[in-house]
């Protein structure tokens, strides 16, 4: 049947009549097989039983095959994928929350550590300050002591000096009076005079 067209092709231009004859002959031949004559093939009812039977067989088997083998498998593949994606998303969400918790914990620890560091620094600073204060006080106390000791000594020396100033003045006054030739003067008088002059 697949050869005939080619043959008819070559003959066609030359012998149109012959071609038509050949075509009709072929038609009748194929048509005769079904006993339908020259009917339009889709309306040739003699082929219906065979088409219906084989459609029922092939389509029925196809339906059963798809229903029992292919579709469960395809549905399974898609479901597994959907589950897997949902599971992965869940896991990702869980990991994210874990990471968030870890970050929060880290930040809290960091804050605590900072606070602790601050406290330690403050303590150290306070301690150092207190120590320095104590030392300063000690040194000041020592200085005060020395100062007061020095003041006492100065006062003593001054008092001594003042005492000696009186006697020196009296001696000097007696010597001057004597040198002036006024004779001997009573020591008590001179002392009184010196005292009066010292005031």
């Amino acid at each position, binding site marked *: *049947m*697949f050869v*005939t*067209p*080619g043959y*008819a*092709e*070559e003959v*066609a*231009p030359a012998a149109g009549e012959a*071609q038509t004859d*050949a*075509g009709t002959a*072929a038609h009748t031949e*194929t048509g005769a*097989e*079904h006993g339908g004559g020259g009917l*339009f*093939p*889709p*309306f*040739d009812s*003699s*082929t*219906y*039983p*065979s*088409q*219906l*039977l*084989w*459609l*029922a067989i*092939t*389509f029925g*088997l*196809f*339906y059963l*095959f*798809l*229903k029992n*083998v*292919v*579709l469960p*498998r*395809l*549905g*399974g*593949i*898609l479901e*597994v*994928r959907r589950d*897997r994606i949902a599971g992965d998303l869940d896991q990702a969400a869980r990991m994210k929350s874990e990471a968030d918790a870890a970050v929060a914990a880290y930040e809290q620890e960091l804050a605590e550590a900072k606070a602790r560091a601050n406290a330690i620094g403050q303590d150290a600073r306070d301690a150092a300050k207190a120590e320095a204060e104590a030392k300063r006080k000690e040194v000041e106390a020592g200085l005060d002591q020395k100062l007061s000791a020095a003041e006492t000594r100065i006062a003593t020396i001054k008092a001594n000096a003042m005492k000696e100033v009186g006697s020196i003045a009296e001696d000097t006054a007696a010597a001057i009076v004597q040198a002036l030739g006024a004779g001997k003067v009573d020591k008590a008088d001179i002392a009184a005079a010196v005292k009066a002059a010292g005031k």
Partner: protein
Amino acid sequence: MANDPIHQFQISKLIPIEIGGLDFSFTNSAAFMVATVVAAGAFLFLTTSSRGLVPSRMQSVSEMSYEFVASMLRDAAGSQGMRFFPMVFSLFMFVLVANLIGLFPYFFTVTSHLIVTFALALLVIGTVIVYGFMKHGFGFLKLFVPQGVPGILVPLVVLIEVISFLSRPISLSVRLFANMLAGHITLKVFAGFVTSLSAFGAVGVVGSILPLFMTVAITGLEVLVAFLQAYVFAVLTCMYLNDALHPGH
């Protein structure tokens, strides 16, 4: 015969079988039905055999066709309609693969015979009627009485609804059959121009360029039609099944 565009629809016996006076021969049509079923079944079976979590290209084609039909059915008939999923998917794949196989030169197109498309349409309508009465009893007849119609108009509306229901298997089958038939005849006619024109020597060969171009263009169009008609058949099946599930509109 080369230019006979009807010849491609001729059915020839390969293995003559006759039972009870009826001709059940294994014909070229039956052979292509087998080819359609084997090609579609093998493709779906083999591409999904690895059950890849990350699908290969071919596996994702199978998955796409699955999800395409599933979403079509779910949109039209709701989740209850999923019980008909194997039927709708089988119909879609059968019609699609039969249409596509028919596009190969010298191949027979199973769906270009009215009896085949009519049988498929009757399968759909039969399922609708049987399931409709099984599920709703006589409540299924509410399908023919839309709600909110004034009393006087009810007989008229019922008549129209009944006629439209009865015409469904016809329109469903004729649409697919006529599309396939007309497409293949057009293709054959244009391809015939190429061969008969080129027989006239150099001028004819030049003149045959246009029909050749048309043949190529129509082949592309026919691929689209093959997909489209399979889709239309499946969508209408989903909508009719929706009537069986929810007859109250």
